[in-house]
């Protein structure tokens, strides 16, 4: 039932994203227009995929660190991605894909560093175990350090274009094309499947690490897999669209309030809801102040926060 409703809303969202836009496309040309096929459709699909990926990454990380404030970007990935992007611009790395690739590399670099910091006990990869608290602290520290290097580069370098790297970092779907959609479609299913497969152990983890262990979950492995999968999803999202905060933080909470805490439900609903939120936000960003455009992260917060506050109120009153 809830899936039928969510799918209906999702389809309506995609349809609205296709029909609405700053350019007027005559109805007769609609099916042939490159504006629809090459710009609107890949953009709304990419926004949906990124929103869904961030929603699922948020679910995974919040379960992993057992902290409702966890956001996929809290673990240092935005700082790493920003550093990668600025380095790509500063070094004039050639090619149309240099910037997203460098951002991805930066995010993965930050992820590896935070992972190593969080891995305690035992030596090397074999015996270590992730400590969620250290992960959070390490993420914040690595993110802050990367951001400091980024800002230093921007203020010291003489390239005026470096300042524009921040514009990119604030997030948006201007770079959407069928190529980016294809990359996301090939890339995202594996980490999504890893998190989806961990639905039941994640439920157990909510009881605490020791009880989960007694109930048969391989907690050590679970934490490593979920952390890596969520981070790789976030790294791809940041490479496609910059740092769009808030989706990964709020969407899991919204889904928990509406449909309960079981991860078997939470993971798919978070994917669908995250996609809806980001696709709606991007459509509004393109159309609300046309011919100008708003940064999508602002719209996400503008529609997401009231929605979230309303649900929270309903929940605390009842």
């Amino acid at each position, binding site marked *: 039932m809830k899936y039928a409703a969510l799918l209906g809303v999702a389809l309506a969202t995609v349809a609205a994203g296709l029909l609405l*836009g*700053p350019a007027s496309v005559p109805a007769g040309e609609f099916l042939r227009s490159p504006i629809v096929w090459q710009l*609107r459709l890949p953009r709304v699909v990419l926004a949906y995929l990124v929103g869904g990926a961030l929603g699922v990454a948020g679910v995974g990380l919040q379960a992993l660190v057992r902290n409702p404030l966890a956001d996929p970007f809290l673990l240092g990935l935005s700082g790493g991605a920003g550093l990668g992007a600025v380095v790509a611009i500063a070094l004039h790395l050639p090619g*149309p894909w240099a*910037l997203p690739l460098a951002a991805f590399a930066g995010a993965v670099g930050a992820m590896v560093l935070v992972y190593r910091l969080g891995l305690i006990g035992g030596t090397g990869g074999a015996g270590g175990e992730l400590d969620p608290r250290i992960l959070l602290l390490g993420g914040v520290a690595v993110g802050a350090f990367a951001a400091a290097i980024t800002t230093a580069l921007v203020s010291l370098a*003489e390239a005026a274009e470096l300042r*524009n790297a921040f514009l990119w970092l604030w997030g948006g779907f*201007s770079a959407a094309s069928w*190529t980016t959609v294809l990359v996301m479609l090939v890339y995202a299913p594996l980490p999504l499947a890893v998190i989806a497969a961990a639905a039941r152990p994640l439920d157990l983890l909510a009881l605490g690490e020791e009880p989960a262990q007694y109930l048969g979950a391989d907690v050590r492995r679970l934490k490593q897999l979920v952390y890596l999968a969520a981070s790789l999803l976030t790294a791809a999202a940041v490479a496609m669209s910059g740092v769009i905060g808030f989706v990964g933080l709020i969407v899991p909470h919204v889904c928990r309030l509406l449909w309960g805490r079981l991860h078997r439900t939470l993971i798919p609903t978070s994917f669908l809801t995250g996609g809806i939120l980001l696709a709606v936000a991007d459509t509004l960003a393109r159309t609300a102040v046309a011919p100008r*455009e708003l940064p999508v992260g602002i719209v996400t917060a503008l529609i997401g926060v009231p929605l979230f506050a309303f649900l929270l109120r309903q929940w605390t009153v009842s």
Partner: protein
Amino acid sequence: MRRWAHRTHLAGFLACIATACGTGNRAPLSAGITVTDDAGRAVTLARPARRIVSLLPSFTELLFAMGAGDRLVGRTAWCDYPPAALAVPNVGDGMPPNIEAVAARRPDLVVLYRSAQNAPAAAQLERLAIPVVVLDLNQLTDLGHAARILGRLTDRKQSADSLARVMDSAAAQPPAPSTHSLVFIVWDNPPIIIGAGSYLDRLAALAGGRNVFHDIGSPSAQVSIETIAARDPDFVAVLSDSATQPSFAARPEWRVVRAVRRGHFLLLPGQLFGRPSPRVAQAVRELRRRLNGEGGAP
């Protein structure tokens, strides 16, 4: 030599004033130069500025053009024209101004661009008793005004005024009938374009180019590629010192824009096009030539 001549001339002028209002017993306050700058501040110099720090490339160019370039003792990292400017000590990128580096040049006048970011710098320099003149320089029409004020502060009134007249007449020209449309792209992701409130919009109009985003009032704005594609400009203009197309030209989403697909790029060197400058007439000629000639007219 010439500077001496000016100074003796000035001395004579002041002596005249002194005798003219010599009936009073107090020394005339008008002994120095006072102008009101674009921030509404009264700027008073005891004598024409001889050690100037210019914190914007346009001001540096204006000072050289009015023959006061030899009085510059500091410039920004961006001030690269005329070539003689490169011999002036660099005081940093000016964003925001490095107050210590500026003060170390012991200037008797600092020329500052009026912006919110520069306001604290003006206040700090004032506390150091360094005279500051704060000027607008966003539009073509600001050039003549800035030249006149700088001319008075440097006692190069005559050449500054004739320079200002040339630039005012360039700014006041009716726009040429537009032969082509264009979009100025400042950044590709997110796409930032130039709107009507900018120097480049006016420059394009003078050269016979219609900015397809003339309806956007602000100097620059973020738009979607879809809007650019729908407005279908003949040319995509980017400020670039390189001769190769920008890297976004190869991205599939940009190739929906006809001018990008056809490679109709105008690569405009930043030194000539990146800022309002006394060489505006040259910039207009150059842009017109590129719109109509080379680069393949559509």
